[in-house]
């Protein structure tokens, strides 16, 4: 290789290496809070036995369920797939998971969240950051 070309390679990797590593670190820095384990479509949780409340909005049905130790669970039934590709589910501003294809999705609330009714359920377009639906379960 021509010495001039070797020098160009060296400079590219000296500068590029630093920039890539900084960018890599920045991308990790801005990582969103992880979605709770088991809350991705395909890993459905079993339903809690007792239904406390039900509401319907468009093609979506919402149920508040109660399990052992007074823990709560939100169940969302989608009749059709959502128009938005990435729909996040929040309960009292805490991210619970995402919706997937049509079907039933369940989100178990933490001890703290279970003890804080009423429950404001928000469906948010995760790409455009727009709230699609808001519903309150008692």
């Amino acid at each position, binding site marked *: *290789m*021509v*010495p001039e*070309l*070797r020098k*160009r*390679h*060296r400079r*590219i*990797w*000296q500068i*590029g*290496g630093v*920039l*890539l*590593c900084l*960018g*890599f670190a*920045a*991308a*990790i820095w*801005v*990582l*969103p809070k*992880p*979605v709770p384990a088991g809350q991705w*479509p*395909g890993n459905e949780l079993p339903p809690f036995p007792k239904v406390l409340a039900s509401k319907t909005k468009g093609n979506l049905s919402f149920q508040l369920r109660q399990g052992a130790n007074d823990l709560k669970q939100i169940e969302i039934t989608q009749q059709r797939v959502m128009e938005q*590709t*990435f729909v996040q589910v929040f309960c009292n501003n805490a991210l619970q998971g995402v919706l997937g294809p049509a079907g039933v999705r369940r989100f178990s609330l933490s001890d703290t969240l279970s003890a804080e009714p009423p429950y404001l359920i928000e469906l948010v377009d995760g*790409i*455009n*950051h727009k709230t699609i639906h808001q519903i309150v379960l008692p």
Partner: protein
Amino acid sequence: MSVNYTTVQWNRQKRRYDRIMLGIMVLYLLTFTFLQLVFYPLTSPETLIIRATGTLAFIMLQFILCIGPLARLDHRFLPLLYNRRHLGVTTFLIGAVHGVFNVIQFHSLGYVDPIFSVFASNTHYASLQDFPFQVLGFFALVILFLMAATSHDFWLKNLSPRWWKSLHMLVYLAYGLLVFHVMLGVVQLEQSPMWIGFVGFGLLTLVSLHLMAAGVEKKRLLEQMDKAAVGEGFYQVCSAEDIPENRAKMVYLEGQNIAVFRYDGKVSAVNNICRHQHGPIGEGKIVDGCITCPWHGYQYLPQNGQSPPPFTEKLETYDVKIVDGMVWVNPSPYPEGTERPAAIIQA
């Protein structure tokens, strides 16, 4: 090395190289598919293809970029360099499958042109977290396409090695774009430590290898310059015994990059830069009486720097003499292909 352009200059080594490459690719795709079906049984076939080809193309690009510094650090990796071109074109093809399936799956069902949709469906260009990462992958694929399309000696000859090399150095930009394509895409979406480790390990390995190779080269160059001593236009290079038979000593004198070859009890000096892709002639060896470039096998005669007929490539030559067993080189170059008498090594 060919007089006329042919689509692919096949030979036994290239066929073997390609067979091994395809074997490893098929093995990877099968393993990936198996693991996806075990851990994510609801994955659709389109998603499976997108993920399998995306990861494979990224790994292949990573591997390709490691070959150069590895070959400079250890000559045992030189065979990997020999047919890197096929590896590069295959990487583009795999990346293209990933890109096309993505556009079909995510952008082809709307009211706007699918390519326009890649740029317009997410407009958070000012946000790092929500950056439209698909755009980065798109531009990386464009660069890989340009490289694959010009990956032929026709383009190398017509663009000139200098411009061709500059164009192909855009691969570093493509790699950077792909790192961020992954880090701002699947990593932001899934926050998986596996993806972070996968990209981070590759990035650190690549940067370290390139910086190590650059350091070794710089040190070698400085040592060559320090050793030389002036005498009547000639520089003392080394002892004739320091050059292994059919190998070379590389020196950098008065801006000239020179390879001094020892063969059949003689020593000759030619320019160290191959006319094909500016490969380091001096890292090659003499095969069948011809200096053979380690990168792609281009050959030159040591006494006149000419490629054996019917080939037409030529190198500059230099005067060499041996005094008391020491090799002296005059760095004033003769025109390409000029015959110069070899210096005889006294027994």
